[in-house]
């Protein structure tokens, strides 16, 4: 029964993630438009956009190689796997024991590298610039993430998301300084990631473009689920929980997503578009916070 339950949770989780990714992008756009005094397109518009892109012929820019057609698949697949590993509403899913934070960080990096390759493939300057920007910011973001992981691993004694999340649920009131820093670092990384969207798909069209956009949408969702599971796992059901707890978990998950959309759009309204230098500086701050998180967790451990 638990095996079946875990499988059902996994399938439901994947379906929810697939449904949420484009909708989250649409919701962000809609809310942004509302903030700017527009009526804005419906939050479900990205579904229409995907449908349109799939109906379009896939044309390749001149002088492109197989990278242009294959790398978008790699990128989207890497992000899809990452998305299936990060718990959303419940723990104890079938893939739980693979949900190692290093694996997830690696998948994020793989997706980013594949997208950057797509951007560079046509050999045009604009794509190269976009690729270099995404790799610069991605490198900084993933370094910050690794530091946060290190802090969490020291804290929980494991790198498995589920183990850490279970521990966080158990001692939900424990907000030691190191964890606050780690949360702040992850939040900054997610915000910068959402506010800077490089034009990586200038050389692709049709379904390849759809895949790149899907990867982008999934990445944002993975960040949000990581923040949810590692720092704010309110309402997340434990392994072997019943349907009622699942429903609460789903509700709490949706609530977290909504709150993040509001935070993101408000920060965008306050700072305007985020320049490359400002983005790099912000990620630098995230790195510093990650470093502090590690130091404070270490200090906690050595204290009697």
């Amino acid at each position, binding site marked *: 029964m638990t095996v079946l339950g875990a499988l059902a949770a996994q399938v439901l989780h994947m379906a929810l993630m697939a449904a949420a990714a484009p909708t989250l992008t649409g919701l962000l756009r809609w809310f942004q438009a509302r903030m700017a005094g527009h009526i804005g*397109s*419906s939050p479900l518009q990205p579904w229409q*956009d995907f449908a349109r892109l799939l109906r379009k012929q896939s044309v390749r820019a001149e002088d492109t190689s197989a990278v242009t057609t294959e790398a978008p698949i790699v990128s989207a697949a890497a992000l899809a796997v990452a998305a299936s590993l990060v718990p959303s509403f419940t723990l104890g899913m079938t893939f739980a024991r693979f949900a190692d934070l290093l694996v997830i960080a690696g998948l994020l990096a793989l997706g980013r590298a594949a997208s950057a390759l797509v951007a560079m493939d046509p050999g045009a300057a604009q794509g190269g610039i976009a690729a270099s920007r995404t790799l610069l910011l991605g490198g900084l973001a993933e370094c910050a993430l690794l530091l946060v992981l290190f802090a969490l691993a020291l804290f929980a004694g494991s790198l498995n998301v589920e183990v850490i999340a279970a521990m966080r649920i158990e001692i939900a009131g424990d907000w030691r300084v190191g964890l606050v820093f780690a949360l702040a670092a992850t939040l900054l990384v997610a915000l910068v990631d959402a506010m800077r969207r490089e034009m990586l798909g200038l*050389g692709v069209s049709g379904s390849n*473009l759809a895949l790149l956009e899907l990867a982008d949408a999934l990445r944002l969702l993975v960040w949000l689920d990581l923040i949810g599971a590692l720092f704010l796992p309110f309402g997340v059901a434990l392994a072997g929980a019943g349907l009622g707890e699942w429903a609460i978990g789903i509700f709490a998950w949706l609530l977290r997503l909504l709150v993040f959309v509001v935070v993101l759009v408000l920060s965008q309204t306050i700072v305007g578009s985020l320049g490359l230098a400002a983005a790099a500086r912000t990620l630098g701050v995230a790195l510093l916070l990650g470093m502090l998180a590690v130091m404070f967790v270490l200090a906690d451990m050595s204290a009697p």
Partner: protein
Amino acid sequence: MRWRDLARWLLQGPVTGNAPQPDTETARALRVRLDAGARSTLGASLAILHLDAGSCGGCEIELRAVRRAVYDLERFGVRFVATPLHADVLLITGPLTRNLLEALELAYAAMPEPKFVVALGDCAVDGGVFKGSYAVAGGVGTTLPVDLQIAGCPPAPDRILAGLRALLEANARSRLKISSR
């Protein structure tokens, strides 16, 4: 920009006005054209590439108005893109100057099927006042198959919106028609 102003603007809500109805006559003609060409359609989502082929800038002023909050084109799922590879609609302003012919042909060729051509403004329709100049080919129709013409010098935003909504309508309707068969 102060917090108080920002809060006031948010409380005021959208400044977007009521949209004009899609031009039904145009939508019907477009649909016939789509069916005749056996072209597949794209549903309630379109990506536009704007191409200035010698415009004086008047059509651009009105096009910007259509994109901005008061007319808010994006609420219908229509967006402006930066490369022909991402575009469904090539929207051309200006009398088609000879210096731009090559860029126009390249852009159109690079667009993936199915694709549409819109001539915006009197100049793009037939050359307008610049008809007959040595530097002008005179109208988009001389070079590309035009699906939709939006006349005016420049066409008012309402007219542009009605025309583009007709294009959306034709895309949505033919799809329904196909699925109901």
